[in-house]
Protein backbone atom coordinates (compact mmCIF):
# COMPACT_ATOMS: atom_id res chain seq x y z
CA UNK A 1 0.00 0.00 0.00
CA UNK A 2 2.72 2.53 0.85
CA UNK A 3 4.76 2.02 -2.31
CA UNK A 4 7.36 4.68 -1.60
CA UNK A 5 8.33 3.15 1.69
CA UNK A 6 8.96 -0.13 -0.06
CA UNK A 7 11.35 1.52 -2.54
CA UNK A 8 13.23 3.74 -0.11
CA UNK A 9 14.13 2.87 3.45
CA UNK A 10 12.61 4.98 6.19
CA UNK A 11 15.15 7.61 7.27
CA UNK A 12 12.98 9.06 9.99
CA UNK A 13 10.36 7.05 11.83
CA UNK A 14 7.80 8.39 14.27
CA UNK A 15 6.13 5.71 16.36
CA UNK A 16 3.04 6.28 18.50
CA UNK A 17 4.17 9.77 19.45
CA UNK A 18 2.12 11.83 21.90
CA UNK A 19 3.28 15.32 22.85
CA UNK A 20 1.94 17.81 25.36
CA UNK A 21 2.64 21.50 25.98
CA UNK A 22 1.61 21.67 29.62
CA UNK A 23 -1.94 20.29 29.63
CA UNK A 24 -2.49 20.78 25.93
CA UNK A 25 -1.95 17.68 23.81
CA UNK A 26 -0.45 18.91 20.56
CA UNK A 27 0.24 15.51 18.97
CA UNK A 28 -1.94 12.45 19.35
CA UNK A 29 -0.55 9.00 18.67
CA UNK A 30 1.38 9.87 15.52
CA UNK A 31 3.02 7.07 13.53
CA UNK A 32 4.70 8.09 10.31
CA UNK A 33 7.84 7.32 8.33
CA UNK A 34 9.82 9.66 6.11
CA UNK A 35 11.61 7.86 3.26
CA UNK A 36 15.31 8.47 2.61
CA UNK A 37 16.23 10.73 -0.28
CA UNK A 38 12.64 11.85 -0.82
CA UNK A 39 10.58 14.94 -0.03
CA UNK A 40 7.91 14.34 2.56
CA UNK A 41 5.30 17.08 2.95
CA UNK A 42 3.16 17.64 6.03
CA UNK A 43 -0.02 19.56 5.34
CA UNK A 44 -3.00 20.65 7.38
CA UNK A 45 -4.69 23.74 8.78
CA UNK A 46 -2.98 26.02 11.32
CA UNK A 47 -2.57 24.49 14.76
CA UNK A 48 -2.85 20.92 13.48
CA UNK A 49 0.51 19.94 14.95
CA UNK A 50 2.53 19.65 11.77
CA UNK A 51 5.11 22.26 12.83
CA UNK A 52 5.28 20.73 16.29
CA UNK A 53 6.05 17.34 14.79
CA UNK A 54 8.72 18.90 12.56
CA UNK A 55 10.31 20.56 15.58
CA UNK A 56 10.30 17.27 17.42
CA UNK A 57 12.45 15.67 14.74
CA UNK A 58 15.44 17.88 15.65
CA UNK A 59 14.23 18.49 19.19
CA UNK A 60 13.75 22.22 18.71
CA UNK A 61 10.58 21.57 20.69
CA UNK A 62 12.84 21.24 23.75
CA UNK A 63 13.21 25.03 23.73
CA UNK A 64 9.57 25.49 24.73
CA UNK A 65 8.61 25.17 28.38
CA UNK A 66 6.81 22.19 29.93
CA UNK A 67 7.03 19.88 26.93
CA UNK A 68 6.39 16.20 27.56
CA UNK A 69 6.25 13.30 25.15
CA UNK A 70 5.54 9.59 24.92
CA UNK A 71 6.42 7.29 22.07
CA UNK A 72 9.53 7.40 19.93
CA UNK A 73 11.15 9.28 17.09
CA UNK A 74 14.09 7.64 15.39
CA UNK A 75 16.55 8.85 12.77
CA UNK A 76 18.45 5.94 11.19
CA UNK A 77 17.05 3.77 13.96
CA UNK A 78 18.51 5.92 16.75
CA UNK A 79 16.08 7.44 19.23
CA UNK A 80 16.39 11.25 19.00
CA UNK A 81 15.47 11.62 22.66
CA UNK A 82 18.39 9.43 23.64
CA UNK A 83 21.11 11.58 22.08
CA UNK A 84 22.59 15.04 22.72
CA UNK A 85 20.27 17.49 20.90
CA UNK A 86 23.25 19.46 19.62
CA UNK A 87 24.68 16.34 18.01
CA UNK A 88 21.27 15.47 16.59
CA UNK A 89 20.97 18.90 14.97
CA UNK A 90 24.23 18.40 13.10
CA UNK A 91 22.54 15.52 11.33
CA UNK A 92 19.09 17.06 11.10
CA UNK A 93 19.26 20.62 9.77
CA UNK A 94 16.44 23.13 9.72
CA UNK A 95 15.16 26.06 7.67
CA UNK A 96 12.57 28.34 9.24
CA UNK A 97 9.39 30.06 8.14
CA UNK A 98 10.91 33.51 8.23
CA UNK A 99 14.38 33.88 6.75
CA UNK A 100 16.68 34.37 9.75
CA UNK A 101 20.21 35.09 8.55
CA UNK A 102 22.48 36.34 11.34
CA UNK A 103 23.46 40.03 11.25
CA UNK A 104 26.88 39.31 9.81
CA UNK A 105 28.44 38.85 6.38
CA UNK A 106 27.12 36.33 3.84
CA UNK A 107 30.24 34.22 4.22
CA UNK A 108 30.13 34.32 8.02
CA UNK A 109 26.54 33.11 7.84
CA UNK A 110 27.45 30.08 5.75
CA UNK A 111 30.51 29.32 7.88
CA UNK A 112 28.75 29.87 11.19
CA UNK A 113 28.00 26.20 11.81
CA UNK A 114 31.26 24.70 10.55
CA UNK A 115 33.31 27.22 12.56
CA UNK A 116 31.58 26.15 15.75
CA UNK A 117 32.00 22.44 15.18
CA UNK A 118 35.18 21.62 13.34
CA UNK A 119 38.72 22.84 13.00
CA UNK A 120 38.72 23.96 9.39
CA UNK A 121 41.28 25.98 7.49
CA UNK A 122 40.53 29.18 5.60
CA UNK A 123 40.80 27.51 2.22
CA UNK A 124 38.32 24.85 3.27
CA UNK A 125 35.91 27.53 4.41
CA UNK A 126 36.17 29.37 1.09
CA UNK A 127 35.45 26.14 -0.71
CA UNK A 128 32.62 25.23 1.62
CA UNK A 129 31.07 28.68 1.19
CA UNK A 130 31.14 28.32 -2.57
CA UNK A 131 29.74 24.77 -2.69
CA UNK A 132 27.00 25.54 -0.19
CA UNK A 133 25.96 28.74 -1.94
CA UNK A 134 26.06 27.02 -5.32
CA UNK A 135 23.87 24.22 -4.10
CA UNK A 136 21.44 26.77 -2.68
CA UNK A 137 21.39 28.49 -6.07
CA UNK A 138 22.68 31.75 -4.63
CA UNK A 139 26.34 31.75 -5.66
CA UNK A 140 26.01 33.66 -8.93
CA UNK A 141 24.06 36.42 -7.24
CA UNK A 142 26.40 36.99 -4.31
CA UNK A 143 29.85 35.72 -5.31
CA UNK A 144 31.27 39.27 -5.44
CA UNK A 145 29.60 40.39 -2.21
CA UNK A 146 30.53 37.61 0.22
CA UNK A 147 31.69 40.14 2.80
CA UNK A 148 28.46 42.15 2.58
CA UNK A 149 25.90 42.15 5.35
CA UNK A 150 23.43 39.31 4.87
CA UNK A 151 20.57 41.53 6.03
CA UNK A 152 21.01 43.56 2.84
CA UNK A 153 19.76 40.63 0.72
CA UNK A 154 16.16 40.30 -0.47
CA UNK A 155 13.81 37.96 1.40
CA UNK A 156 14.15 35.19 -1.19
CA UNK A 157 17.94 35.48 -1.19
CA UNK A 158 17.98 35.44 2.61
CA UNK A 159 15.97 32.23 2.65
CA UNK A 160 18.33 30.57 0.16
CA UNK A 161 21.23 31.79 2.31
CA UNK A 162 19.59 30.06 5.27
CA UNK A 163 19.37 26.89 3.18
CA UNK A 164 23.07 27.25 2.28
CA UNK A 165 23.86 27.77 5.97
CA UNK A 166 21.98 24.59 6.86
CA UNK A 167 23.51 22.39 4.16
CA UNK A 168 27.03 23.66 4.92
CA UNK A 169 26.81 21.41 7.97
CA UNK A 170 26.22 18.41 5.72
CA UNK A 171 22.99 17.28 7.38
CA UNK A 172 21.39 14.04 6.27
CA UNK A 173 17.89 15.30 6.95
CA UNK A 174 16.68 18.80 6.15
CA UNK A 175 13.58 20.11 7.90
CA UNK A 176 11.77 23.04 6.33
CA UNK A 177 9.05 24.85 8.26
CA UNK A 178 6.86 26.64 5.71
CA UNK A 179 10.00 27.89 4.00
CA UNK A 180 8.19 29.90 1.33
CA UNK A 181 5.32 31.44 3.27
CA UNK A 182 7.16 34.75 3.62
CA UNK A 183 8.40 34.81 0.01
CA UNK A 184 7.14 36.20 -3.29
CA UNK A 185 6.07 33.77 -6.07
CA UNK A 186 9.36 33.89 -7.98
CA UNK A 187 11.45 33.19 -4.88
CA UNK A 188 8.95 30.49 -3.91
CA UNK A 189 9.51 28.80 -7.27
CA UNK A 190 13.27 28.87 -6.76
CA UNK A 191 13.04 27.39 -3.28
CA UNK A 192 10.66 24.65 -4.46
CA UNK A 193 13.06 23.72 -7.24
CA UNK A 194 15.80 23.64 -4.64
CA UNK A 195 13.85 21.19 -2.48
CA UNK A 196 13.64 18.76 -5.39
CA UNK A 197 17.37 19.07 -6.03
CA UNK A 198 18.31 18.78 -2.38
CA UNK A 199 16.30 15.58 -1.99
CA UNK A 200 18.95 13.85 -4.08
CA UNK A 201 21.45 14.13 -1.23
CA UNK A 202 19.22 14.82 1.73
CA UNK A 203 15.98 13.55 3.14
CA UNK A 204 13.75 16.62 2.96
CA UNK A 205 10.75 17.08 5.25
CA UNK A 206 8.66 20.16 4.61
CA UNK A 207 5.69 21.66 6.40
CA UNK A 208 3.46 23.67 4.14
CA UNK A 209 0.14 25.47 4.14
CA UNK A 210 0.10 25.39 0.41
CA UNK A 211 -1.41 22.23 -1.08
CA UNK A 212 -0.23 23.05 -4.59
CA UNK A 213 3.26 23.26 -3.20
CA UNK A 214 2.86 19.84 -1.63
CA UNK A 215 1.81 18.34 -4.96
CA UNK A 216 4.69 20.07 -6.77
CA UNK A 217 7.54 19.15 -4.46
CA UNK A 218 6.69 16.10 -2.40
CA UNK A 219 6.90 12.37 -2.94
CA UNK A 220 5.03 11.51 0.20
CA UNK A 221 2.38 13.55 1.89
CA UNK A 222 0.85 13.45 5.36
CA UNK A 223 -2.35 15.25 6.35
CA UNK A 224 -2.78 16.42 9.94
CA UNK A 225 -5.86 17.67 11.74
CA UNK A 226 -6.12 18.78 15.37
CA UNK A 227 -2.98 16.97 16.41
CA UNK A 228 -3.88 13.75 14.64
CA UNK A 229 -2.38 12.20 11.56
CA UNK A 230 -5.42 11.63 9.36
CA UNK A 231 -3.67 9.86 6.55
CA UNK A 232 -0.35 9.60 4.76
CA UNK A 233 0.75 8.16 1.48
CA UNK A 234 2.38 8.81 -1.87
CA UNK A 235 1.47 12.37 -2.85
CA UNK A 236 -0.32 11.64 -6.18
CA UNK A 237 -2.38 8.94 -4.53
CA UNK A 238 -3.31 11.04 -1.49
CA UNK A 239 -4.46 13.91 -3.67
CA UNK A 240 -6.25 11.75 -6.24
CA UNK A 241 -7.88 9.21 -3.96
CA UNK A 242 -7.99 10.37 -0.35
CA UNK A 243 -9.15 7.51 1.83
CA UNK A 244 -10.47 9.63 4.66
CA UNK A 245 -13.48 11.90 4.33
CA UNK A 246 -11.68 14.66 6.28
CA UNK A 247 -8.75 14.63 3.89
CA UNK A 248 -11.09 14.90 0.96
CA UNK A 249 -12.92 17.82 2.56
CA UNK A 250 -9.66 19.65 3.23
CA UNK A 251 -8.25 19.03 -0.23
CA UNK A 252 -11.41 20.22 -1.91
CA UNK A 253 -11.34 23.35 0.20
CA UNK A 254 -14.39 22.62 2.33
CA UNK A 255 -12.55 23.81 5.45
CA UNK A 256 -9.15 24.99 6.59
Amino acid at each position, binding site marked *: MDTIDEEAAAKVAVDHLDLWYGDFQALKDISLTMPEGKVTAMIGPSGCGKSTLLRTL*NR*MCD*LAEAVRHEGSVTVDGTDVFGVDP*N*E*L*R*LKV*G*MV*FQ*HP*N*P*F*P*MSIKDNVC*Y*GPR*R*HAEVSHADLDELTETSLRRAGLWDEVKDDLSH*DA*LGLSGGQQQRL*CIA*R*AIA*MGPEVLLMDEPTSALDPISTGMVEELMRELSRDHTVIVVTHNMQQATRVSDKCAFFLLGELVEAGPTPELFAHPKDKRTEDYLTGRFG
Partner: protein
Amino acid sequence: MPKHRLERCGLTVTGACVALVTVLVVTLIVMVASHGLATFANDGIAVGDFLLGTTWNPHQADANGNPTVGALPMICGSFAVTILSTVIALPIAIGSAIFVVEVAPGFGRRVFQPLIELLVGIPSVVYGLIGLSVVVAWTRSWSGSTGYGILSASIVLAVMVLPTVTSLSIDALASVPHEYREGSYALGCTRWQTIWNVVLRSATPSLMTATILGMTRAFGESLAVQMVIGNSAQIPGSLLTPASTLTSVLTMGMGNEAMGTVYNDVLWSLALLLMAMSLVFILIIHLIGGRGAVRHG
Protein backbone atom coordinates in the same frame (compact mmCIF):
# COMPACT_ATOMS: atom_id res chain seq x y z
CA MET B 1 -14.40 77.49 22.34
CA PRO B 2 -14.75 77.92 18.56
CA LYS B 3 -12.86 75.36 16.54
CA HIS B 4 -10.39 77.73 14.89
CA ARG B 5 -9.49 79.31 18.20
CA LEU B 6 -8.81 75.91 19.72
CA GLU B 7 -6.50 75.10 16.80
CA ARG B 8 -4.62 78.34 17.19
CA CYS B 9 -4.48 78.03 20.96
CA GLY B 10 -3.05 74.50 20.75
CA LEU B 11 -0.45 75.58 18.26
CA THR B 12 0.57 78.55 20.38
CA VAL B 13 0.88 76.64 23.65
CA THR B 14 2.86 73.69 22.24
CA GLY B 15 4.99 75.99 20.10
CA ALA B 16 5.78 78.13 23.12
CA CYS B 17 6.92 75.05 25.04
CA VAL B 18 9.33 74.12 22.28
CA ALA B 19 10.60 77.69 22.04
CA LEU B 20 11.15 77.83 25.80
CA VAL B 21 13.17 74.61 25.87
CA THR B 22 15.23 75.70 22.88
CA VAL B 23 15.95 79.09 24.42
CA LEU B 24 16.90 77.43 27.71
CA VAL B 25 19.37 75.05 26.10
CA VAL B 26 20.93 77.74 23.94
CA THR B 27 21.23 80.21 26.83
CA LEU B 28 22.77 77.55 28.99
CA ILE B 29 25.39 76.69 26.43
CA VAL B 30 26.11 80.33 25.64
CA MET B 31 26.38 81.21 29.33
CA VAL B 32 28.77 78.38 30.20
CA ALA B 33 30.79 79.04 27.07
CA SER B 34 31.06 82.81 27.58
CA HIS B 35 32.12 82.47 31.20
CA GLY B 36 34.38 79.53 30.42
CA LEU B 37 36.08 81.27 27.54
CA ALA B 38 36.57 84.46 29.56
CA THR B 39 39.50 82.72 31.24
CA PHE B 40 41.36 82.73 27.98
CA ALA B 41 39.99 85.94 26.47
CA ASN B 42 40.03 88.30 29.49
CA ASP B 43 42.39 86.76 32.02
CA GLY B 44 45.15 86.02 29.52
CA ILE B 45 45.55 82.35 30.36
CA ALA B 46 46.75 80.19 27.48
CA VAL B 47 44.48 77.28 26.54
CA GLY B 48 47.49 74.97 26.57
CA ASP B 49 48.43 76.00 30.13
CA PHE B 50 44.89 75.23 31.22
CA LEU B 51 44.51 71.88 29.50
CA LEU B 52 48.05 70.58 30.04
CA GLY B 53 49.21 72.42 33.17
CA THR B 54 49.82 70.03 36.01
CA THR B 55 49.52 72.43 38.93
CA TRP B 56 46.16 73.63 40.17
CA ASN B 57 46.43 76.54 42.54
CA PRO B 58 44.47 79.53 41.22
CA HIS B 59 45.35 81.69 44.20
CA GLN B 60 49.03 81.61 43.39
CA ALA B 61 50.82 83.14 40.42
CA ASP B 62 53.32 81.24 38.29
CA ALA B 63 56.64 82.58 36.97
CA ASN B 64 54.88 84.77 34.39
CA GLY B 65 52.57 86.29 36.94
CA ASN B 66 49.55 84.31 35.76
CA PRO B 67 47.51 82.21 38.19
CA THR B 68 48.45 78.52 38.07
CA VAL B 69 45.34 76.86 36.74
CA GLY B 70 46.55 73.61 35.18
CA ALA B 71 43.49 71.37 34.90
CA LEU B 72 45.30 68.23 33.81
CA PRO B 73 45.14 66.59 37.28
CA MET B 74 41.36 66.85 37.27
CA ILE B 75 41.05 65.80 33.64
CA CYS B 76 43.14 62.73 34.44
CA GLY B 77 41.10 62.09 37.57
CA SER B 78 37.80 62.32 35.72
CA PHE B 79 38.88 59.96 32.96
CA ALA B 80 40.50 57.56 35.43
CA VAL B 81 37.39 57.14 37.58
CA THR B 82 35.15 56.95 34.49
CA ILE B 83 37.18 54.26 32.78
CA LEU B 84 37.94 52.26 35.92
CA SER B 85 34.34 52.29 37.11
CA THR B 86 33.20 51.15 33.66
CA VAL B 87 35.75 48.35 33.66
CA ILE B 88 34.39 47.20 37.02
CA ALA B 89 30.70 47.62 36.20
CA LEU B 90 30.52 46.42 32.59
CA PRO B 91 31.35 42.71 33.03
CA ILE B 92 28.95 42.46 35.97
CA ALA B 93 26.22 44.29 34.04
CA ILE B 94 26.56 42.17 30.91
CA GLY B 95 26.94 38.98 32.93
CA SER B 96 23.76 39.55 34.88
CA ALA B 97 21.95 40.68 31.73
CA ILE B 98 22.89 37.39 30.05
CA PHE B 99 21.63 35.45 33.03
CA VAL B 100 18.25 37.14 33.28
CA VAL B 101 17.59 37.25 29.54
CA GLU B 102 18.93 33.87 28.44
CA VAL B 103 18.83 31.67 31.51
CA ALA B 104 16.07 32.80 33.86
CA PRO B 105 13.75 35.25 32.09
CA GLY B 106 10.94 34.75 34.62
CA PHE B 107 13.18 35.60 37.57
CA GLY B 108 14.55 38.54 35.60
CA ARG B 109 11.18 40.07 34.89
CA ARG B 110 9.65 39.50 38.31
CA VAL B 111 12.55 40.01 40.72
CA PHE B 112 15.76 41.28 39.18
CA GLN B 113 14.55 44.16 37.02
CA PRO B 114 12.38 45.77 39.74
CA LEU B 115 15.38 45.47 42.06
CA ILE B 116 17.62 47.22 39.55
CA GLU B 117 15.10 50.00 39.04
CA LEU B 118 15.06 50.52 42.79
CA LEU B 119 18.82 51.07 42.73
CA VAL B 120 18.54 53.72 40.00
CA GLY B 121 16.36 55.86 42.23
CA ILE B 122 18.70 56.03 45.22
CA PRO B 123 20.11 59.59 45.57
CA SER B 124 23.82 59.91 44.96
CA VAL B 125 24.51 61.33 48.41
CA VAL B 126 23.43 57.97 49.86
CA TYR B 127 25.93 56.19 47.64
CA GLY B 128 28.55 58.69 48.80
CA LEU B 129 27.73 58.04 52.43
CA ILE B 130 27.97 54.28 52.00
CA GLY B 131 31.17 54.77 50.01
CA LEU B 132 32.63 56.85 52.79
CA SER B 133 31.81 54.41 55.57
CA VAL B 134 32.31 51.11 53.74
CA VAL B 135 34.48 51.46 50.64
CA VAL B 136 36.95 54.00 51.97
CA ALA B 137 37.24 52.06 55.24
CA TRP B 138 37.77 48.83 53.35
CA THR B 139 40.45 50.33 51.09
CA ARG B 140 42.16 51.85 54.10
CA SER B 141 42.14 48.53 55.94
CA TRP B 142 44.37 46.71 53.44
CA SER B 143 46.29 49.42 51.63
CA GLY B 144 47.80 51.43 54.46
CA SER B 145 46.70 54.62 52.68
CA THR B 146 43.98 57.00 53.76
CA GLY B 147 41.50 55.05 51.68
CA TYR B 148 40.50 58.14 49.74
CA GLY B 149 41.39 58.03 46.07
CA ILE B 150 40.56 56.92 42.59
CA LEU B 151 40.02 53.28 43.54
CA SER B 152 37.39 54.09 46.16
CA ALA B 153 35.72 56.61 43.86
CA SER B 154 35.66 54.09 41.02
CA ILE B 155 34.10 51.39 43.17
CA VAL B 156 31.38 53.76 44.37
CA LEU B 157 30.79 54.97 40.81
CA ALA B 158 30.70 51.40 39.52
CA VAL B 159 27.88 50.59 41.94
CA MET B 160 26.11 53.77 40.89
CA VAL B 161 26.26 53.15 37.15
CA LEU B 162 25.70 49.40 37.46
CA PRO B 163 21.87 49.64 37.49
CA THR B 164 21.78 51.90 34.44
CA VAL B 165 24.18 49.76 32.44
CA THR B 166 22.55 46.49 33.53
CA SER B 167 19.08 47.69 32.74
CA LEU B 168 20.12 48.91 29.29
CA SER B 169 22.08 45.70 28.66
CA ILE B 170 19.01 43.63 29.51
CA ASP B 171 17.01 45.65 26.98
CA ALA B 172 19.78 45.22 24.42
CA LEU B 173 19.89 41.42 24.76
CA ALA B 174 16.11 41.07 24.97
CA SER B 175 15.72 42.92 21.69
CA VAL B 176 17.85 40.40 19.80
CA PRO B 177 15.29 38.56 17.64
CA HIS B 178 14.40 35.09 18.88
CA GLU B 179 14.86 33.80 15.31
CA TYR B 180 18.62 34.38 15.58
CA ARG B 181 18.80 32.09 18.58
CA GLU B 182 16.69 29.42 16.91
CA GLY B 183 18.88 29.63 13.81
CA SER B 184 21.96 29.02 15.91
CA TYR B 185 20.42 26.16 17.93
CA ALA B 186 19.26 24.53 14.69
CA LEU B 187 22.90 24.45 13.58
CA GLY B 188 23.75 22.33 16.60
CA CYS B 189 25.17 25.15 18.70
CA THR B 190 24.92 25.08 22.47
CA ARG B 191 23.36 27.85 24.52
CA TRP B 192 26.70 29.51 25.29
CA GLN B 193 27.92 29.24 21.72
CA THR B 194 24.68 30.93 20.72
CA ILE B 195 25.00 33.64 23.35
CA TRP B 196 28.62 34.38 22.49
CA ASN B 197 28.44 34.22 18.71
CA VAL B 198 24.97 35.47 17.90
CA VAL B 199 23.30 37.22 20.82
CA LEU B 200 26.21 39.32 22.09
CA ARG B 201 27.42 39.96 18.58
CA SER B 202 24.15 41.32 17.29
CA ALA B 203 23.59 43.30 20.48
CA THR B 204 27.03 44.96 20.37
CA PRO B 205 25.88 48.40 19.16
CA SER B 206 23.20 48.58 21.88
CA LEU B 207 25.64 47.31 24.50
CA MET B 208 28.08 50.04 23.50
CA THR B 209 25.34 52.63 23.88
CA ALA B 210 24.61 51.22 27.34
CA THR B 211 28.29 51.48 28.23
CA ILE B 212 28.65 55.04 27.06
CA LEU B 213 25.49 56.15 28.85
CA GLY B 214 27.01 54.64 31.99
CA MET B 215 30.28 56.46 31.32
CA THR B 216 28.41 59.73 30.84
CA ARG B 217 26.82 59.28 34.23
CA ALA B 218 30.15 58.39 35.85
CA PHE B 219 31.89 61.32 34.22
CA GLY B 220 29.27 63.81 35.40
CA GLU B 221 28.68 62.47 38.92
CA SER B 222 30.04 64.88 41.51
CA LEU B 223 28.65 64.52 45.00
CA ALA B 224 29.44 60.88 45.72
CA VAL B 225 32.85 61.17 44.07
CA GLN B 226 33.73 64.25 46.02
CA MET B 227 32.96 62.42 49.26
CA VAL B 228 35.41 59.58 48.65
CA ILE B 229 38.15 60.74 46.28
CA GLY B 230 40.14 62.86 48.75
CA ASN B 231 40.03 66.10 46.73
CA SER B 232 43.69 66.73 46.19
CA ALA B 233 44.35 68.48 42.90
CA GLN B 234 47.42 66.59 41.83
CA ILE B 235 48.14 64.17 39.03
CA PRO B 236 47.11 60.82 40.52
CA GLY B 237 50.28 58.85 41.12
CA SER B 238 48.44 55.72 42.19
CA LEU B 239 44.88 54.53 42.59
CA LEU B 240 45.24 54.89 46.35
CA THR B 241 46.40 58.49 46.64
CA PRO B 242 43.84 61.28 47.00
CA ALA B 243 42.93 62.89 43.71
CA SER B 244 40.14 65.02 42.28
CA THR B 245 37.89 65.23 39.26
CA LEU B 246 36.51 68.10 37.23
CA THR B 247 33.21 67.76 39.05
CA SER B 248 34.61 67.50 42.55
CA VAL B 249 36.76 70.62 42.11
CA LEU B 250 33.73 72.45 40.77
CA THR B 251 31.45 71.57 43.65
CA MET B 252 34.18 72.31 46.19
CA GLY B 253 35.15 75.67 44.68
CA MET B 254 32.04 77.22 43.18
CA GLY B 255 30.49 78.56 46.36
CA ASN B 256 33.66 80.16 47.66
CA GLU B 257 34.81 82.36 44.80
CA ALA B 258 33.31 85.68 43.78
CA MET B 259 31.93 86.11 40.26
CA GLY B 260 34.39 87.73 37.88
CA THR B 261 37.56 86.62 39.65
CA VAL B 262 40.04 84.51 37.71
CA TYR B 263 39.37 81.54 39.98
CA ASN B 264 35.68 81.77 39.22
CA ASP B 265 36.30 82.03 35.49
CA VAL B 266 38.52 78.98 35.54
CA LEU B 267 35.82 76.99 37.29
CA TRP B 268 33.51 77.95 34.43
CA SER B 269 36.16 76.66 32.06
CA LEU B 270 36.06 73.33 33.87
CA ALA B 271 32.28 73.32 33.47
CA LEU B 272 32.70 74.05 29.77
CA LEU B 273 35.08 71.11 29.51
CA LEU B 274 32.56 68.84 31.24
CA MET B 275 29.82 69.98 28.92
CA ALA B 276 31.98 69.43 25.86
CA MET B 277 32.78 65.89 27.03
CA SER B 278 29.09 65.12 27.57
CA LEU B 279 28.38 66.34 24.06
CA VAL B 280 31.12 64.05 22.74
CA PHE B 281 29.59 61.08 24.60
CA ILE B 282 26.14 61.86 23.21
CA LEU B 283 27.59 62.24 19.73
CA ILE B 284 29.19 58.80 19.99
CA ILE B 285 25.86 57.31 21.07
CA HIS B 286 24.16 58.83 18.05
CA LEU B 287 26.86 57.52 15.74
CA ILE B 288 26.49 53.99 17.13
CA GLY B 289 22.70 54.27 17.07
CA GLY B 290 22.80 55.32 13.44
CA ARG B 291 24.99 52.38 12.49
CA GLY B 292 22.80 49.94 14.43
CA ALA B 293 19.69 51.26 12.71
CA VAL B 294 21.26 50.70 9.31
CA ARG B 295 22.21 47.15 10.24
CA HIS B 296 18.73 46.20 11.35
CA GLY B 297 17.15 48.30 8.57
